[in-house]
């Protein structure tokens, strides 16, 4: 290898050939810094845009601002960078599970711009998913630059996601846990170290450039047994809100798809509707962190009805923004809806039982956030650690665990797949490590093809066929037309059993009479998971592979499972 090319392929250096963890740690550090900077860039841009547009928000026409922002965002994605709308996290998960984390370079910056336009103008969405997309794409492209293999690239993509989340929330553990729990879907020692380093790097970038700020600091809460008991009810409320938000987002997407208008027009309609809701309830506008601070410090005004109405309004605004074509994520809306739900629930039980000395409502707002994040992402650890870190303490850890665990469980009953994974699971595109689909996705029909089959002709007599059987160790025989060589059917040993003990029939029967002319066949491009499912459903142990009416070979369940075991061992050893 030329010296000039060697630095582009560090994984081939002798020092990293035996153990590539130091290499992944170094690249993870670089990626963590880059993704942290990307997250900060979006954060700063949002602040600047909020400030710039703040002076116009009191005008009657201000409801147009979120519409204009969403329309510009949609136009940017559709016409300039030619990407689809959406928050991007499912795209990252899809790429990780199917294509070893390959992501386009343009995704490293496109979502930052589009999310800035949507959220900065007042759209109800969060910047976290776009920064995850951006960080992951940065990681993927740095891994590509250094010619890392699929497994290494997946780890580096995880580093990008972790660095971004850590930076934007100033929460290194949450970044790490989110990546392992949601993006990669596996906890392996090999992944954890580089991802932890990226999280630290992302957090340090954030702390260095904007100080060590706790996003939602609170005065500290003293929690009694009554409060913990009330948390069960809060978990039910947050689970219900999670399901409501998930379904609203999905149904709004279907509704908007039926509107015969250009994507940017739809995004504008959604954005303007959010602007109109914002006149009545300003809490729904933008990412909503200011409102969360008010709720946690017990300064949010209004009674239980206002808080409950705000929950519904925020759900509606978020689904209008994202479902109609705006760009952004659901993390921040989850936090706002969760804190509003917690607040509404606290005010409701305080009304019901005024004699009980409840913990201040800010505590329930905080627990509500954890419930919502855990419920909608079905990732309880992410919810717990995120809230612990962004609120700056472990004081509420016990009710936090309780709410997150119950909310996740309840949501799982109603919606078996999380918001990020639902579409991927519906399309059969989610290949989590260690699953059948994941193991088999690395194998192909052609790799398992058994070609040591003896083909027979439809005109062959049973006597001749018995001679063929004597020199074959197989039970299945493909039948091919003599002239064109086309596959015309299959014959199996049990097909000839009725004639086997009657020598008179040996010359009277030809194979065409007893073969199966329409056997189940496999196409070379079929997925092996589907092949295995078909074999199971029809109780078959072997199937012919046919392309263009030509017999190519056989696939047997024994070979398939044998290769499955070998591949599983490879994947487990590699990822372990």
């Amino acid at each position, binding site marked *: 290898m030329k010296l000039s090319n060697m630095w582009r392929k560090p994984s081939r250096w002798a020092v990293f050939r035996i153990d590539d963890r130091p290499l992944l740690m170094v690249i993870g550090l670089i990626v963590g810094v880059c993704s942290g900077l990307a997250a900060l860039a979006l954060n700063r841009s949002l602040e600047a845009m909020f400030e710039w547009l703040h002076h116009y928000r009191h005008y009657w026409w201000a409801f147009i601002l979120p519409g204009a922002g969403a329309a510009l965002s949609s136009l940017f994605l559709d016409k300039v960078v*030619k990407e689809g709308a959406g928050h991007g996290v499912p795209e990252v998960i899809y790429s990780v599970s*199917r294509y070893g984390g390959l992501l*386009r370079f343009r995704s490293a910056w496109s979502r930052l711009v589009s999310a800035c336009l949507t959220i900065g103008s007042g759209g109800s969405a969060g910047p976290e998913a776009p920064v995850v997309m951006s960080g992951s794409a940065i990681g993927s492209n740095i891994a590509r630059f250094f010619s890392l293999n699929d497994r290494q690239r997946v780890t580096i993509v995880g580093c990008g996601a972790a660095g971004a989340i850590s930076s934007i929330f100033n929460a290194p553990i949450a970044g790490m846990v989110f990546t392992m729990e949601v993006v990669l879907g596996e906890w392996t020692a090999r992944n954890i170290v580089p991802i932890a380093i990226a999280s630290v790097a992302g957090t340090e970038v954030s702390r260095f450039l904007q100080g060590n700020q706790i996003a939602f600091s609170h005065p500290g809460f003293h929690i009694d047994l009554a409060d913990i008991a009330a948390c069960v009810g809060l978990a039910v409320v947050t689970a219900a809100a999670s399901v409501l938000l998930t379904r609203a987002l999905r149904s709004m997407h279907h509704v908007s798809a039926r509107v015969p208008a250009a994507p940017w027009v739809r995004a504008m309609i959604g954005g303007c509707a959010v602007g109109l809701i914002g006149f009545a309830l300003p809490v729904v506008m933008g990412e909503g962190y200011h409102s969360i601070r008010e709720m946690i410090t017990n300064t949010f005004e209004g009674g239980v009805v206002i808080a409950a109405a705000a929950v519904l309004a925020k759900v509606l605004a978020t689904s209008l923004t994202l479902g109609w074509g705006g760009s952004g994520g659901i993390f921040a809306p989850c936090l706002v809806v969760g804190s509003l739900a917690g607040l509404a629930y606290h005010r409701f039980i305080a009304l019901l039982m005024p004699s009980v000395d409840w913990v201040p409502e800010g505590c329930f707002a905080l627990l509500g956030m954890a419930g919502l994040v855990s419920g909608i992402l079905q990732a309880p650890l992410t919810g717990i650690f995120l809230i612990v870190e962004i609120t700056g303490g472990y004081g509420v850890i016990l009710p936090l665990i309780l709410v997150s665990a119950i909310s996740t469980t309840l949501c799982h009953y109603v919606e078996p797949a999380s918001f990020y994974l639902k579409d991927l699971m519906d399309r059969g595109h989610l290949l989590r490590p260690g699953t059948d689909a994941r193991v088999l996705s690395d194998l192909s029909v052609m790799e398992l093809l058994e070609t040591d089959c003896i083909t027979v002709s439809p005109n062959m007599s049973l006597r001749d066929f018995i001679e063929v059987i004597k020199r074959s160790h197989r039970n299945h025989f493909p039948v091919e037309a003599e002239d064109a060589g086309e596959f015309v059917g299959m014959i199996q040993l049990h097909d000839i059993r009725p004639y086997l003990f009657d020598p008179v029939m040996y010359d009277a029967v030809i194979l065409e009479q007893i073969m199966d002319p329409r056997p189940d066949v496999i196409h070379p491009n079929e997925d092996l998971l589907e092949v295995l499912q078909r074999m199971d459903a029809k109780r078959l142990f072997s199937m012919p592979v046919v392309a263009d009416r030509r017999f190519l070979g056989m696939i047997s369940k024994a070979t398939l499972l044998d290769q499955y075991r070998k591949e599983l061992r490879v994947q487990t050893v590699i990822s372990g």
Partner: protein
Amino acid sequence: MEPKLFHIFRNTPLGRETLLQSVYFCKTMGAELEIYIPEYTKFLMYFENDVVQIDLDASYLTAPETARDHAAALAEAGKTRYGFLAPKHFTASTLPDIPTHFDFMCCPRSISDLSSKMGLGYIGPRVRRIVQSAQFPVLITSAAFKPWQSIAVFFGGSANAVKSLKLGLRLSRITGMPLRMYTQMENYSKADYQKVIADNGLEDAVANETAEWRFFETSDFGVNLYEVAHDALVILGAFGHGVIRDVLFGSKMEKIQSIMPNNLLIVGPKYAAIH
């Protein structure tokens, strides 16, 4: 199994010419034609270490109701085995993933820009990315259908040139068409080039299977290209250099694609040669 050529069909007169080239290639090579009729203006190709988003020129979506019939009619008229590719996987709802396991792919000089931009000297950025990343050679067709009657391989002694030569020899064996090699002499002697051939075990193949190995000794490569037959399929390696490797190929490749209107079969750096 027969080799497969992947073709993205454009239902326009220009697209017809390109498909005719593919049909001829498949018929001559005994390859199967895999036609993709796009429903969206973009798709992704996931290669081994790269993902390329192809943003098609809007003309690829022209008259979708007749596209399939037109493509089928051309393939049937050319008596080529063909099939239509339907994407199974989608990165996003309007962003299909196109498989990359083909043996060849056919492209016009550009697939993302307006056809009016096409001309000698221009190969679009997406086509360049495909060449750089693909494990298959890319057939870049001339604007109008022209059957090729011989094979011309440009051999400069590099690893990619060796791969091109192997591909040329393979095509020559399959099609029975004469193979001519061309080498622009620069800082090396004939013996140096012959040594490369010998080092790669191609000495006998070159001696027995090539009709001619022409060495250009005059310095103007552009002028020398007139010697190449007008109806030859030109096979050459393309390898980008330095930080602009995605934008520009080597100087010889750029010169050839700027001057020659022939059909080009370009071998990228990731191509794994089958000899």
